[in-house]
């Protein structure tokens, strides 16, 4: 921006002149007024700093401190009383011959300066009010001294008149120019309270002719904060007059413009060779007026108006530039106009940016550059001139500087994220686009479609970067011009001499550095502290510039940093030019070591295939460097670490086997493949050092010059036998071969290896060494590495007919594991399957050492959890009991052919299923001789080296017995104990009204094995609701022990008394009141008895019949003809709380086989809960055979009672079931009650 006159760029603000604040330059402590003046000056001057970026439109003035009797520049050259005054012009007008613009200038910066520094819109005059000094303290008792008062008044009046006269004089001069005059009277604080102040002020104003509004202020010394308030209120008050002032100017200019545009085109002077001055053309006048109006609008803070005028001025300027007649190129006026157009362009851009119209600003700027770029071609300063690029660079730079200034305060660079595509684009666009006036519908829709990349504003770093690029072009073109000059061609450009003084590289560096800093600033939002790639790219440009300007040291420092990232991310193509420039720097710096390092790295970068480079160039350079006698800083070995960049060789280490047994030989191959695109055949590699893991001693392959084996070295694949390297740990091994590679050649080193201890061995490091004279260069190399960055493909070189590679298809190919031979161990199990539940089932585990070494054996047993939840099983071995894992059962040291057996007991409960056992036998060699008592201790230590033999054992488990049962319920048939019978209160009284159940329980020996049952006991668990009355077991005590072969059954019948449960729900199940405990042993096939096992079987839960009312019919099963028999009907009310109203009907029939004596129809007394009623009939059978007894109907009428109470009709009640107690009643089945009558007489 410094290349443009600041007047044309700076933001304009109303100008206020302040006079009368002169401070006496005394070093003494000042009085209150001097302090006040000083503070006022500071406060006023702080209001506005002339800057380019100042978008706020608060009412602030640009304050200029002036002398009290400041004079304004004359409006016209002639005094107003001159008769020529109306026809004369301003001293700056092109029409005034003495003007710098005469005759055809447009606008000079001096015009702006006039309005910012010489002519104000407001003049503020600070004046001190006269105050009569107090000569003695007045006492209230004093008589008012009328003389003195009058004297004082007169003095004041005199002084005030003088002041008013001074103001009036000033007022006259300001009125001429339409400038507002404001007087601030300074008075002491005491004066403010004086009663005469008002009248004095009125007097002064009238006398001086000041305006009534905002023209007279009084100020006394106040605190700084109050002063700030005063200053702002002063500005508030004066802002409107200032605006009026500039509006008046605008109006005047507009009048002139209108007059001008209506006037006919005045004259057209043909272009003549004589360089006579031509007056300004109408286009020029339009530019002039529009520009002025723009400025005045800017003064007023009306940015939109200013923008419009500036745009008009710019358009007109473009038209002017379009014609070489109007503006002949390369003239003074042309150059001025060019500067003006650049500045207007910046102003327009700035005004757009104030309004957040980023893309409009950028598009105007780029249009400007394009238009004037096109013009430049016409002017003969096209792209191939340094002037063009200089100008371009300047445009980019100015724009960048404007943005930078803006972003320092209010400007926010917009983010260009794509809005959510396709759907609902407009609404999102509206929300994301935060522009003020930009949020018009048109822009919204455009935004939703996409954006114009050339109109997307980015941060200033980009424009600095562009400026730097243009400056680079400028330098390039300049150098072309310099060449041309050297070739005795005439350089026509007039600015060539100037250009020679320009430090191009310094400018480029400055621009790149600025760009770099801005890129850094704007990328700092991302949290990663590492340098971003954009800055790296600029850093690379900076380094290049340093290189171009010969500062190689600086360049090298940059290259070092940049190369790191490029290497890491494998952008080799970008790395190549960097490396070669770097190498040139190193050459220039004479840094041989760096040169060697870089050359080796470049050799490794075989992607640097550029056409002009001979593949052997790098190699030649390297060999030449190594021959330099220059001692590389003492005797130190130069290590070239290529771990970050590409390796020089494709290296691959392959072992034929993944693991071998101790004592066996392992073979390996290390292949080194040379790059294909560069030659390295003359690099004097002196040795290759192979480091194997676990030892300091390396295997060294030394180079010897091939003497007779020239044919061999030319083979593309060579094999070098390292021999048996088993003893690499003890003594270093050296081999000799030719270490030279032709492009793409492969050198394979193969070796054999043994180990007598378990170990994992790999190749840790390869080191190539170059030794030449004093040079010692070491190139470490990974044992497995590929130039492409991918993992190397493992291949094994075979020589059958011709060398070829066999792929090794294995995950871990670059290391070998030596292992002990796995011991030969036999594991057998002996058990009699299936196992019974509840039995301690013995499983013999035998381990036989079939090996020829002594082995220590330990067994772990894991019982896998069963699928059924309730199956709880335990295993026991060596007094260890567990439900899952028994660990570390020692079997001791087994000599060859010895065996050991231990018994594992498996106890299964729950349901029969398969039990699965995992048995792991671990064994390892015992080294010491003889019986070693410490073996067990070692065992724990040596677990890692143990060999494991895993066996899985499935044990089917079945139940030893099968049980079945049958339950029959019997009602209590004898009479009940009366309700109030005292016996029922006895502690041991058993209420047998619930009847009893008869359980027939059968136990069957189910398994395939014979068991010996030691005992079967019914363990009674009598409860309140039922009890075991008796069991057939009780009288069969001597039945046990007895042997049960499979299929044998044993039955027990037991009677269970059931009580009527009082409190519980009647429908509930009654748990069985006992269990059968069977103690048994299994009889093994060899007649051996197993351990005593116990199985338990519970009595089944009972379901006693439950009914409320029941009628039990008791009859003898057999009767004799004509012999009477009793028929008893017991009606019981088993209901808890309801009484029953029972009627009994005996329905006789003519065909009945009986003669009945007894109740026919009758109602029995109300039956209370828990009571019974007995009705007896006498029956005399009169027929033989199966006969039916008369039908008996028992009806509970309780429910129907309300309906039947009124009528005598038999209301149907609830039928009560009549049960023949002789027979078992199975629910759901119909029975008829029959008799079998025997005819004894007939017999």
């Amino acid at each position, binding site marked *: 921006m410094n290349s443009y006159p600041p007047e044309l760029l700076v933001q304009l603000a109303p100008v206020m002149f302040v006079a009368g604040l002169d401070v006496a330059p005394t070093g003494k402590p000042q009085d209150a007024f001097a302090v006040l003046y000083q503070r006022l000056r500071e406060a006023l001057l702080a209001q506005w700093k002339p800057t380019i970026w100042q978008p706020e439109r608060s009412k602030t003035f640009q304050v200029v401190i002036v002398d009290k009797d400041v004079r304004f520049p004359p409006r016209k050259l002639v005094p107003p009383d001159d008769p020529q005054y109306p026809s004369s012009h301003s001293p700056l007008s092109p029409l005034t011959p003495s003007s710098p613009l005469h005759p055809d200038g447009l606008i000079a910066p001096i015009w702006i300066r006039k309005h910012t520094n010489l002519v104000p819109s407001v003049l503020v005059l600070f004046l001190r009010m006269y105050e009569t000094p107090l000569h003695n303290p007045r006492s209230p008792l004093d008589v008012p001294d009328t003389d003195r008062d009058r004297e004082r008044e007169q003095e004041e009046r005199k002084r005030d008149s003088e002041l008013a006269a001074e103001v009036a004089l000033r007022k006259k001069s300001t009125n001429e120019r339409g400038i507002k005059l404001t007087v601030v009277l300074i008075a002491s604080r005491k004066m403010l309270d004086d009663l005469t102040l008002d009248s004095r002020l009125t007097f002064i104003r009238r006398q001086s002719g000041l305006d009534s509004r905002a023209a007279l202020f009084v100020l006394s010394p106040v605190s700084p904060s109050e002063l700030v308030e005063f200053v702002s209120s002063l500005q508030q008050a004066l802002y409107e007059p200032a605006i009026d002032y500039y509006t008046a100017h605008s109006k005047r200019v507009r009048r002139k413009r209108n007059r001008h545009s209506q006037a006919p085109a005045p004259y057209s002077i043909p272009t003549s060779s004589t360089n006579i001055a031509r007056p300004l053309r109408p286009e020029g006048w339009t530019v002039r007026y529009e520009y002025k109006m723009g400025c005045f609008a800017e003064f007023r803070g009306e940015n939109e108006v200013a923008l419009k005028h500036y745009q008009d001025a710019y358009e007109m300027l473009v038209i002017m530039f379009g014609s070489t007649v109007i503006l002949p190129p390369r003239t003074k006026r042309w150059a001025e106009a060019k500067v003006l157009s650049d500045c207007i362009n910046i102003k327009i851009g700035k005004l757009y940016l104030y309004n957040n119209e980023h893309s409009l600003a950028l*598009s105007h700027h*780029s249009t400007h550059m394009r238009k004037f770029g096109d013009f430049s071609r016409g002017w003969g300063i096209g792209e191939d001139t340094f002037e063009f690029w200089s100008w371009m660079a300047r445009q980019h730079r100015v724009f960048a500087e404007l943005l930078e200034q803006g972003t320092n305060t209010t400007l926010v660079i917009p983010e*260009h*994220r*794509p*809005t*959510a*595509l*396709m759907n609902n684009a407009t609404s999102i666009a509206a929300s994301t686009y935060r522009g003020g006036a930009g949020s018009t519908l048109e822009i919204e829709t*455009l935004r939703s*479609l*996409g*954006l*114009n*990349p*050339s*109109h*997307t504003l*980015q941060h200033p770093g*980009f424009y600095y*970067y*562009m400026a730097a*690029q243009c400056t680079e072009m400028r330098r390039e073109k300049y150098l072309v011009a310099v060449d041309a000059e050297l070739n005795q061609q005439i350089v026509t450009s007039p600015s060539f001499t100037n250009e020679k003084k320009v430090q191009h590289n310094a400018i480029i560096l400055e621009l790149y550095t600025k760009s770099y800093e801005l890129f850094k600033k704007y*990328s700092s*939002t*991302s*949290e*990663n502290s590492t340098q*971003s*790639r*954009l800055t*790296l*790219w600029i850093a690379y440009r900076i380094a290049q510039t340093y290189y171009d300007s010969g500062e190689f040291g600086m360049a090298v420092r940059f290259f070092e940093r940049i190369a790191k990232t*490029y290497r890491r*991310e*494998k*952008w080799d*193509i*970008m790395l190549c*030019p960097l490396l070669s420039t770097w190498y040139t720097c190193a050459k220039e710096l004479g840094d041989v070591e760096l040169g060697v390092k870089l050359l080796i790295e470049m050799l490794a970068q075989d992607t640097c295939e550029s056409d002009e480079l001979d593949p052997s160039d790098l190699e030649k350079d390297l060999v030449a460097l190594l021959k330099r006698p220059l001692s590389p800083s003492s005797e130190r070995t130069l290590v070239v670490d290529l771990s970050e960049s590409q390796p020089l060789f494709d290296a691959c280490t392959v072992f034929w086997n993944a693991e071998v047994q101790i004592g066996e030989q392992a073979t390996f191959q290390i292949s080194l493949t040379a790059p294909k695109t560069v030659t390295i055949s003359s690099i004097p590699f002196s040795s290759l050092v192979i480091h194997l893991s676990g030892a300091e001693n390396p295997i060294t392959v030394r180079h010897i010059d091939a003497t007779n084996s020239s044919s061999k070295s030319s083979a593309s694949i060579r094999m070098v036998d390292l021999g048996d390297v088993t003893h690499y740990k003890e003594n270093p091994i050296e081999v000799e071969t030719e270490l030279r590679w032709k492009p793409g050649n492969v050198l394979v080193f193969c070796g054999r290896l043994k180990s007598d201890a378990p170990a994992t061995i790999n190749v840790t490091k390869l080191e190539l060494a170059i030794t030449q004279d004093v040079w010692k260069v070491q190139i470490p190399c990974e044992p497995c590495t590929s130039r*492409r*960055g*991918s*993992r190397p*493909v*493992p291949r094994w070189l075979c020589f059958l007919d011709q060398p070829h590679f066999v792929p090794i*298809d*294995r*995950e871990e*190919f670059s290391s070998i594991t030596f292992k002990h031979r796995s011991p030969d161990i036999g594991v057998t199990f002996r058990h009699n399957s299936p196992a019974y539940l509840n039995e301690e089932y013995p499983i013999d585990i035998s381990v036989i050492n079939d090996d020829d070494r002594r082995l220590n054996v330990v067994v772990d047993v894991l019982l896998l959890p069963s699928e059924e939840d309730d199956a709880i099983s335990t295993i026991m071995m060596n007094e260890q009991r567990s439900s899952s894992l028994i660990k570390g059962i020692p079997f001791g040291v087994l000599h060859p052919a010895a065996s050991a057996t231990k018994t594992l007991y498996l106890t299964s409960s729950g349901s029969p299923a398969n039990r699965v056992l995992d048995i792991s036998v671990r064994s390892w060699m015992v080294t010491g001789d003889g019986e070693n008592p410490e073996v067990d201790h070692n065992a724990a230590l040596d677990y890692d080296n143990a060999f494991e033999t895993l066996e899985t054992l499935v044990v089917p488990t079945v139940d030893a017995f099968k049980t079945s049962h049958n339950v029959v319920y019997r009602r209590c048939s004898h009479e009940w104990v009366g309700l109030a019978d005292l016996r029922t209160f006895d502690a041991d009284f058993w209420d047998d009204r619930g009847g009893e159940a008869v359980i027939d329980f059968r136990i069957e020996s189910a398994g395939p094995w014979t068991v010996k049952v030691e005992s079967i006991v019914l363990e009674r668990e009598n409860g309140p609701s039922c009890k075991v009355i008796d069991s057939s077991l009780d009288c069969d005590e001597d039945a046990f022990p007895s042997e049960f072969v499979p299929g044998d059954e044993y039955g027990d019948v037991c009677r269970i008394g059931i009580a009527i449960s009082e409190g519980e729900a009647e429908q509930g199940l009654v748990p069985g009141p006992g269990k059968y405990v069977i103690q048994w042993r299994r009889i093994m096939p060899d007649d051996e008895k197993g351990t005593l096992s116990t199985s338990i079987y519970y009595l089944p839960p009972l379901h006693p019949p439950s009914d409320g009312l029941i009628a039990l019919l008791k009859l003898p099963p057999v009767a004799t003809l004509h012999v009477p028999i009793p028929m008893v009907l017991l009606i019981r009310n088993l209901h808890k709380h309801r009484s029953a109203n029972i009627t009994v009907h005996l329905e006789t029939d003519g065909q009945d086989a009986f003669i009945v004596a007894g109740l026919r129809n009758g109602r029995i007394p109300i039956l209370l809960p828990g009571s019974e009623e007995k009705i007896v009939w006498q029956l005399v059978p009169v027929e033989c055979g199966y006969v039916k007894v008369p039908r008996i109907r028992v009806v509970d009428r309780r429910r129907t009672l309300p309906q039947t109470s009124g009528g005598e009709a038999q209301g149907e009640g609830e039928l009560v079931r009549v049960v023949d107690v002789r027979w078992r009643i199975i629910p759901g089945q119909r029975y008829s009650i029959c008799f079998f009558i025997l005819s004894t007489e007939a017999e």
Partner: protein
Amino acid sequence: MAPNLRLNAVAFVSPQNHPILIRTFVKQDEFAIKYHYIAHTSLDVIEERVSSSGKSAECYLGLLYALEDVAVYGYITPLKVKIVLAFAMADTVIKDVEVNMIFKAMHMAYYSAIANPFLKLDVPVDAAQDHSPYLQVGSAKWKHFRRRIDEISRVTTRVVGHSSLP
């Protein structure tokens, strides 16, 4: 009428930020390296966009930056392969829909190229997590990928150019 969308270069960058393929469609070969720089530097902006937009990120990242005479657009596949397009700068609106379409086509081209089972032929068995076979897809050995990209470029320039005609 000249097409307004001119594809200058396309770059495919692996999730580890290694270049897979950088293909330029401009004549001057000496500028080819410029597009390497562009692809590399645009990774910055891609990373920034991806990290700031969180999980709900779309593949299409929009205009990354405009520099010199190219406008650089970015795209990131769900598996973090980055695709960068460099268009010649022209004073017209570039529609996001169109650019996204080209990106999708490029993505598909890459996708079908890495589906080539022969890519993994020379790769060690355990390299399931290894991306190096995908880097190979850009090498000159696998012509189909390049051919397909070239075709997309050609079609793009033609079709988009026509579609923008009034």
